[in-house]
């Protein structure tokens, strides 16, 4: 097990001082427990507001948790001192959903990819020259090239930007990659390229993925095991085929039923008649 989440609970208090109204709170994650094995692709499926994003923010230490433990490779992240946590960040990286927004529009591709190496300079110990070489290496790894080094993000298409985002995440040699809906903003043909790239990278680098998506097709394609999260609760967890073939919770069944498959024969409507 590389990541173990034990009884994680996260409660948000409502923002703002409201001294003329009652204090309200909202539980985003409710006693969540998960474990992810080294080298596996773990899928986390849920609809908007289910707590997926909060969970990733907790793992990354961007959110203070209310109770529970997050153990990464034997270390409890929630009690880690700040300096240690910073070091740990080199081992856990994230790729966000929106490739348009996750790249700083004012930075060159080179600088974007080199930045994690600068931040984790003490761990990696790379000089400026070495960093530049590694940037090119990374670009080539994700299917781009040295000709893209000195350009700004807006000069790239969505798929290319997501590749840049992946290259950035890989810059510090992480072992664990959180993929937060990495393809949901992409067109299908581009999504296919990115999914294939992710698959190849995992093969090549032995990465562990936490893949978050609401697209069941994508999840089924890329993941080994999945967990379904609904309003802060894990409602089902298991092997991907098990859940897709034999869903045990109502929620899983509902999701599967609602998933539109690109096969007119499976349409719930009698569309043929109208034509």
């Amino acid at each position, binding site marked *: 097990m590389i990541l173990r989440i034990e009884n994680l609970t996260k409660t948000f208090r409502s923002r703002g001082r409201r001294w003329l109204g009652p204090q309200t709170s909202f539980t985003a994650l409710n006693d969540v427990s998960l474990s992810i094995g080294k080298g596996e692709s773990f899928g986390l499926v849920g*609809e908007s507001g289910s707590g997926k994003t909060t969970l990733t923010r907790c793992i990354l230490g961007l959110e203070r948790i209310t109770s529970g433990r997050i153990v990464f490779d034997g270390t409890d992240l929630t009690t880690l001192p700040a300096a240690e946590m910073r070091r740990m960040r080199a081992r856990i990286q994230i790729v966000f959903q929106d490739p348009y927004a996750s790249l700083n529009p004012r930075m060159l591709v080179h600088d974007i990819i080199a930045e994690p190496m600068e931040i984790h300079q003490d761990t990696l110990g790379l000089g400026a020259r070495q960093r530049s070489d590694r940037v090119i290496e990374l670009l080539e790894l994700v299917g781009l090239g040295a000709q893209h080094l000195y350009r700004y993000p807006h000069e790239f298409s969505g798929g290319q930007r997501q590749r840049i985002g992946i290259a950035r995440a890989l810059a510090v040699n992480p072992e664990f990659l959180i993929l937060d809906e990495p393809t949901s903003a992409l*067109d299908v043909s581009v*999504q296919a390229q990115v999914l294939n790239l992710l698959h190849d990278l995992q093969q090549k680098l032995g990465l562990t993925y936490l893949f978050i998506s609401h697209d069941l*097709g994508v999840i089924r*394609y*890329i993941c080994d095991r999945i967990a379904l999260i609904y309003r802060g609760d894990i409602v089902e967890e298991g092997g991907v085929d098990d859940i897709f073939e034999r869903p045990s919770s109502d929620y899983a069944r509902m999701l599967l039923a609602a998933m*539109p498959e*690109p096969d007119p024969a499976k349409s719930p409507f009698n*569309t043929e008649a109208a034509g």
Partner: protein
Amino acid sequence: MAFLDIRDLHLAMRTFEGEAHVLNGINLSVERGEIWGLVGETGCGKSLTGLSISRLVPSPPGRYLRGEIRFAGQDLLATPEDGMRRLRGGHIGMIFQDPTTNLNPAFRIGEQMVDVALHADAVDPAILGLAPGASRRQRRVEARRLAIAMLDKVGVPDAARRIDDYPHQFSGGMRQRVLIAMALIGKPELLIADEPTTALDVSVQAQILRLIHSLVLEYQLAVLLITHNLGVVAQLCTHVAVMYAGNIIESGPVRPVFRNPTHPYTRALMKAVPHATHRRGELQGLPGSVPNLFTPPPGCRLAPRCPVAQPRCAERVPPTIAVSPGHDVACVLATPAGSAAA
């Protein structure tokens, strides 16, 4: 002539870089009761096609170079703005992608619906069914009654009370229902739905699709559903038109097109969608990216990325060929129906 008939529609948009040919000879015929899925990737012109029907493409920078759009026989491109306004809402309803931004946040939903209903009534007095001499107040009361009925119809619970709520008090799915109610309050014959479910969760998406389907059956609507989701098309649509870089490259009834995609692009698209049967690493994306519309490739716009491209593809725009009745493909490799089938 079809109920909605788009013939050889060419649209150019002026930008800093030059004039982009964003629609390049669109042909489409839609009948009442048909649900057409207009699919394609970002920037292929599917939304502009929808907006063109309502004549909502701003001009400038938009400019129609050629072609015509006929709606119930009326040439829309030649209709003055005033005439278009009478068609909008009353005869052509539209809904858009993001239900959170498409409702005016400063007004109660009822206020907006009543105005739409009053407008539709001004076009067609049958909507409210009031005598010509009815007072403004009477009309508003009746319009409000209609709005509540419509909300009820689209499945907004407790419609009579919620009509006085503001948009931010509704969930995303409910807002989309409100928008649908608003689009249908004028009893249009054509509904243009531009990515109506993209911003919604799958479970909500399924409900909305079901709603649209039932409304089509009830009102004999012609629907143009613009989407990039092949699954949605497969589920809801009777017909599909696949767009690429401003062209419809394949169109026809859903089943033949999906079972037997003929155009290389359609095929690539189908293959790119992850499917239960796909093994990891087997998905096939289309290499390359969408062509630059300022200087599009001379022949088939897919040619540079096409896995089966031939030299002649780059020379001339391929003609549209019917590979089976109603199933049209714009590819040189397609074989016309009736000729020796593969």
